[in-house]
């Protein structure tokens, strides 16, 4: 299975990664190699095996429903580029 340059550019856009036009062929070929490897694994019959969602063979520990986090807004906002009235300010997102 081979990726096209258009698909690679789309993936990069979705991940918000900037890639140079010149580098695109290299990404196309390297990412395609990975997919080819996955395709190879796909050939193994795994019908009777439970899909593995996590490499550790343990299950999720659950926490009690208790409020344990105090308000640390000032601390968190001290590293924010811009805040106003307690809100984080970001470039306008609505069109």
């Amino acid at each position, binding site marked *: 299975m081979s990726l096209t340059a258009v698909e690679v550019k*789309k993936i990069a856009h*979705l*991940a*918000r990664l900037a890639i140079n036009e010149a580098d695109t062929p290299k990404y196309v070929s390297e990412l395609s190699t990975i997919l080819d490897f996955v395709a190879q694994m796909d050939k193994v019959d795994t019908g009777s095996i*439970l*899909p593995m*969602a*996590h490499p*550790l063979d*343990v*299950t*999720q*520990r*659950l*926490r*009690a*429903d*208790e*409020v*344990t*986090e105090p*308000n*640390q*807004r000032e601390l*968190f*906002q001290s590293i924010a580029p*811009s805040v*106003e*009235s*307690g*809100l*984080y*300010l*970001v*470039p*306008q*997102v*609505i*069109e």
Partner: protein
Amino acid sequence: MKWETVIGLEVHCQLTTKSKIFSGAATAYGAAPNTQACAIDLGMPGVLPVLNIEAVHMAIKLGLSIDATISPHSVFARKNYFYPDLPKGYQISQFELPIVSQGHLDIDLEDGTRKRVGITRAHLEEDAGKSMHEDFNGMSGIDLNRAGTPLIEIVSEPDMRSAKEAIVYLKSLHALVRYLGICDGNMQEGSFRCDANVSVRPLGESKLGTRCELKNLNSFRFIERAINFEIARQIELIEGGGTVIQQTRLYDADKNETRPLRSKEEANDYRYFPDPDLLPVAIEQALIDKVRLELPELPQQKCERLQKQYELSAYDASVLVSSRELADYFEATVKQAQVSAKLAANWINGELAAALNRHNLEITASPITPAQLADLLRRIADNTISGKIAKSVFEILWESKESVDSIIEKQGLRQVTDSSAIEKMIDDILAANPQHVAEYRSGKDKLFGFFVGQVMKASGGKVNPQQLNDVLKKKLAGQ
């Protein structure tokens, strides 16, 4: 051509946990911006989400109440997209292995039939923050208090065939989650939100038409209007030779129209994958059995019980069970008043509901308690006051802290049942209207109502109507 509408609904319910789904920050509504957003909610590097056990219990409750499969093995996944109110760049949700699947909800339609709506799945996920786009000099303000609030997303099969059916389903689901105590159902605050997938196809066609997803639906009334607008739009488009394009559309309540949403993440390419920060969730049968024992009486069970136990009509019972609190109010009233349940149902669904509505109050905030209403109903039942006078007492009771009996005494509203007093009043009226008496006696029966009216007027409505009728009939007959 005849068209058939096909509707599927996705409902997001905020769960009523005290803390967030993956962090110990509070979830209370209305806090100052960003005071309930901790390092985990902000997506700070190095943090680890840990699942809230109560959210899992609530999902199991929902699953059991819709006869669904509770997955013994369920997995959280990352849904990737970029938006400022989603600090991590992904939402933790469930994709391939949701906690609840293959359930159904039976809904009672207006025509008395019961319809089964399939529920494909219900999964746990985290809510995003809120963006505010005004007043920040061209910037957007972000409040992340809501980020990480637990949601359960309930996805129905495309089983609804009209906007009306969709609303019945939503109201049933709304009542259910409130009965279960897993969601407060507050639509204004966004605790219960709905997206609708709407398509049309020629009647008899089995293949589904292309659907549009409607968003921004925050009241039952708007949902119904938005769906009906969208149905009409799609039919008009197709009949005009066009084709429906699959897209997300926003409902604008002011203009009563839907319009395409800007393409936020063009192809909706969320690139789901299992979240490596979270291990698979194992749910043992013992836990499911334990939660099953905690299930309250559900709306449909309660509705059937009220009809049977109190001999109420299906309609009265269905109105009373629309919320658990209303049904509780009814049962408390009947128990204390020891009057007919029908009388109590009439007053609660009539006078009380209207007054609550006028004052925009929930039943839990009613200024008249079940005990007070019970006092009032007892005085109607024992003929101390008439039903009509009772409405005046009700109004005074609404505003004051006085007891029913003291209102009746102070305002002199006690019904006149003393027959000599009633006879005296009737004699006066008959003497003052000799012409009408003569006409009545010569066969104008309809004038009976006139005499009743006159006596009622003279007595301020306080004469016992039954007694008045009996005595008046005798007097007019010349006895």
